[in-house]
């Protein structure tokens, strides 16, 4: 929890400045959503909702999106992640990857639904092909690295 604000600042800087060279076809991993997922594992659903809301507001401010778009998505995803964290806990990399993939894709789906409601329907196929699917894959891969790498190193250290 004490890492939340430094984590948020790190996400802001990484997403706005540092991830440019790592973008694949213009797509970057959604570090804000990963932060929400990671923090939500350690706090109550109420706190996760509020932290998700705060993260989302910052993401909206740094983006061209209407203020509230990602705040809505991130607070909902924070609540769900915290609520389901005990039932869905896994340390298996593949399962973790699929969970992150599903979560990010769901967040993309919610964003698409809100954009459709407020700004009119964006073309569905390009949205799935160019934004939701690659973003989910990239975010899940990066999330897996962040979560699993320390565990992998611990296993190696024990083996040594």
């Amino acid at each position, binding site marked *: 929890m004490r890492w939340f604000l430094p984590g948020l*600042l790190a996400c*802001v*800087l990484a*997403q*706005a*400045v*540092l991830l*440019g060279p790592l973008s694949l*076809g*213009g*797509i*970057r991993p*959604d570090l*804000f959503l990963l932060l929400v997922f990671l923090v939500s594992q350690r706090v109550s*659903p*109420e706190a996760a*909702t*509020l932290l*998700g*809301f705060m993260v*989302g*507001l*910052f*993401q*909206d*401010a*740094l*983006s*061209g*999106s*209407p*203020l*509230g*778009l*990602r*705040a*809505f998505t991130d*607070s*909902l995803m924070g*609540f769900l992640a915290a609520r389901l964290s005990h039932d869905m806990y896994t340390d298996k990399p593949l399962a973790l990857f699929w969970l992150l993939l599903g979560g990010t894709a769901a967040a993309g789906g919610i*964003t698409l639904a*809100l*954009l459709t409601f*407020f*700004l*009119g329907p*964006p*073309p569905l196929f*390009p*949205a799935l*092909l*160019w*934004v939701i699917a*690659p*973003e989910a894959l990239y975010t899940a891969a990066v999330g897996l690295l962040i979560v699993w790498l320390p565990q992998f190193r611990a296993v190696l250290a024990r083996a040594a």
Partner: protein
Amino acid sequence: MSAILRLLARYRRATILTTTLVVSFLLMTLQVRHETAVVSFTRQVLLFTVSPFIKVTAATVRGVSNTWRDYVDLRGLQEENTRLQRETAILKRRIDQLEEQALETQRLQALLAMRQASRAEFLTARVVGKDATNWFKTVLLDRGSLEGVRRNQPVVVPDGLVGRVVEVTPTSAKVQLLTDPVNAVGGLIQRTRVTGIVSGNLGAGARVRYLPLMADVVGGDQVVTSGMGGVFPKGIPIGRITAVERRSGALFQEATLQPAVDLSRLEEVLILTTLEANAGREAGTSLGAGAGFEAGNGRRP
């Protein structure tokens, strides 16, 4: 009253979730037609909080990458190398630096030439950040209202149009790029003088919409700003048509457009801070204020 408070405390989880979702929804609703003071203030406070960190990080990244490049250049050198080899390496590095400086000078000269050629006033700015989502295409500049940047000011580079300022804090400004899905700019096919609306899409590039069905538009046609709307001066290159789509039964034809500017590699840009009315008409060039439809689709702040 106390009964309500007790009820809220009992269902605290649902209350907090519902409140955050409703507040988010309300914030979005307030922006559908036009931006309210509350939304604008919130947005500016959030952006103002992080923009100094972003500027410092961008400057640090530039410094570190330059140092790293120097380090990589120097790493291969060993003391056993002959003096000639050392000199060659040093000279190569100098050439690299000079080439980099020459490229920067070229870019800045082009910006300066553009500035001198037109009668508008420009402000040079550096790109320090990119959009935090993959849904929109915006960049953050290191100039803000303290230097005279205002909303809706056009942003250009010598190659053509970049976008327009949509958000300003005292020290930074957010620019909606030409390729942003909710951006809309009045475009003019230079060869046939047909007008359309240029907007971004979720993939790469942009599209020209609302082209009359019988209009003569072919691949390779140059598209420039139409000047209608008074936001963008007339005649700024937007891009080239790459393909034209005519769907049966449609009232208009559409075309895909390759922007004239590589928007993924922006470093320095010019913000048009003031546009002299009628400058283009008098000078026979492209600058001038018009009237009509432009500057976004009206559904976004």
